[in-house]
């Protein structure tokens, strides 16, 4: 369970999030316009940005958690991954999620390697094992990022616009993966993809004017969409089921 207590975020003198309090009991979908602070909220939960207020995970203040302990609890999947090391292989990349579990200065254990290998098998990605991460397509990269999060065995997984760069078919594959993860993980999904959001069917947190509006359910109707996005919707088109 994640608790946000009067969370505020500023970049310079610009306020991004203002005094947000929220209890995330299980899953959450975060919606909002570009620049509304969705990613900032996610990064605050991971303690990647400076913030005022308190973020607690299962009762523990995130600021008091050691780097490695935090890594064991939360995974954050970015929209895009810049890879400087062009020769980093997929198998090496997913193994990096075991960093928090291995002893300092030593190599990854066989147990770690086994978990990485099995996770890739489970997601049917074994054929990518020996390929450089930088050579993958956007769809494959997103799948490998999911694999990497699973290898970390964290309870909470945050997806930051997972379908932003994907074609409809890959979006569907990713959507189904994310939904299946809801059973064992707490999923926080940030997205502009309303088809995805309604398919994932978690409570919605809509950020507008630096404040959040929480909907336990029933967010996806035309009045709400019109009110919050300020555009007319007819119907959502892509079917993920």
């Amino acid at each position, binding site marked *: 369970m994640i608790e946000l207590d009067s969370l505020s975020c500023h970049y310079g003198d610009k306020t991004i999030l203002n005094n947000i309090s929220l209890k995330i009991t299980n899953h959450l979908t975060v919606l909002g316009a570009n620049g509304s602070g969705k990613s900032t909220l996610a990064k605050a939960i*991971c303690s990647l940005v400076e913030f005022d207020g308190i973020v607690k995970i299962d009762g523990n203040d995130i600021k008091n958690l050691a*780097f490695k302990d935090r890594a*064991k609890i939360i995974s954050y999947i*970015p929209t895009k991954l810049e890879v400087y090391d062009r*020769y980093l292989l997929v198998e090496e990349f997913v193994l*990096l999620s075991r*960093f*928090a579990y291995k002893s300092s200065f030593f190599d990854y254990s066989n147990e770690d390697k086994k978990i990485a290998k099995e996770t890739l098998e489970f997601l049917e990605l074994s054929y990518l094992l020996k390929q450089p991460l930088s050579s993958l397509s956007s769809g494959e990269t997103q799948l490998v990022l999911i694999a990497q999060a699973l290898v970390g065995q964290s309870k909470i997984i945050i997806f930051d616009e997972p379908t932003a760069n994907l074609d409809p078919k890959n979006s569907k594959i990713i959507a189904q993966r994310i939904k299946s993860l809801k059973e064992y993980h707490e999923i926080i999904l940030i997205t502009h993809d309303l088809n995805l959001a309604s398919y994932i069917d978690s409570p919605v947190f809509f950020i507008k004017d630096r404040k959040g509006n929480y909907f336990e359910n029933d967010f996806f109707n035309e009045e709400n969409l019109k009110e919050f996005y300020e555009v007319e919707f007819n119907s959502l088109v892509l079917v993920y089921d």
Partner: protein
Amino acid sequence: MIRIFIWSLLSFVLIISPFLGSVHLNLADIFNYDTLTSNIFFNLRLPRVFFAFFAGSILSLSGFLFQNIFRNTLMTPYTLGISSGAVLGVGIAIKLGFGILAFGISTLSAFGFFGALLSVFLLIYLAQFLKNTHQESLLLLGIALSLFYSSALMVIFYLGNSIQNDILIRFTMGSLSVIGWQNPLLLSLMAFILFVSIYMYRFELQLLALSEEQAKLKGVDAKKVILSLLIIASLAIGVLVSISGPIGFIGLVVPHLVSKLYPLSIEHRIFKTALFGGLFLVSCDTIARSIQTQGELPIGIVTALIGVPLFIYLIISKQG
């Protein structure tokens, strides 16, 4: 095949290197310890090859380190002004007269270290104000600082007397010439420390090469790791520069060549970079010593002639 060829060539040069130079050695006299030949061989040539090897390792490893920490192939202690900072530190020490003292070496090294360290801190401090997060801005910042340090060195020239200036000019041209084993052994220790540190932090470095954000998310105390590695690199660079003066482009050329030769992730390139860098600088130095001129060609000229074209190529190829 090409790997075997390149390694054999470099190793061959390493073996013949001590026998080449401005003074021709009579092979029969090498183990005849009273002769000049033996003296030159064991107290000048061998230490020099040894020194060049570890200098090359340090330059290559720190280039490799900077490139992965800052995620840009153009980042090296030389291009980011860390070398110039060390040179300025040593310049100040020479101006203050420490260079002429008997224990001069260690004082110069200390000044070189602090010069390098202060330039690293200044660079990091200024970098946090960069609005533009593109790494090219950091490079420009480094180049600007480098120009500043060079200008400051000019002031020291202007203030110095002719003896100090003579030492300074020779120093800034860069030279791998050493007498005896003290400096080579000191440098081998520095190279060893740098290598071990990078190796110990190889997985942290792999994560940092993705992004600082990814590293933090996976449990790396990114600030601490970056700072520790940069301080250790500054120490190695500072000590090296205080003895040899600035030697450019090795840190740029060698990691690039090694990644072409071994397209493997960074974890598997650390040792190869150190070894290749050592052999590469020994080869450059052998070229510098073998070209028959009045004396020998300054090593910086040889490395620049090889390095600048590659530097330009890397800048152009990055624009795609």
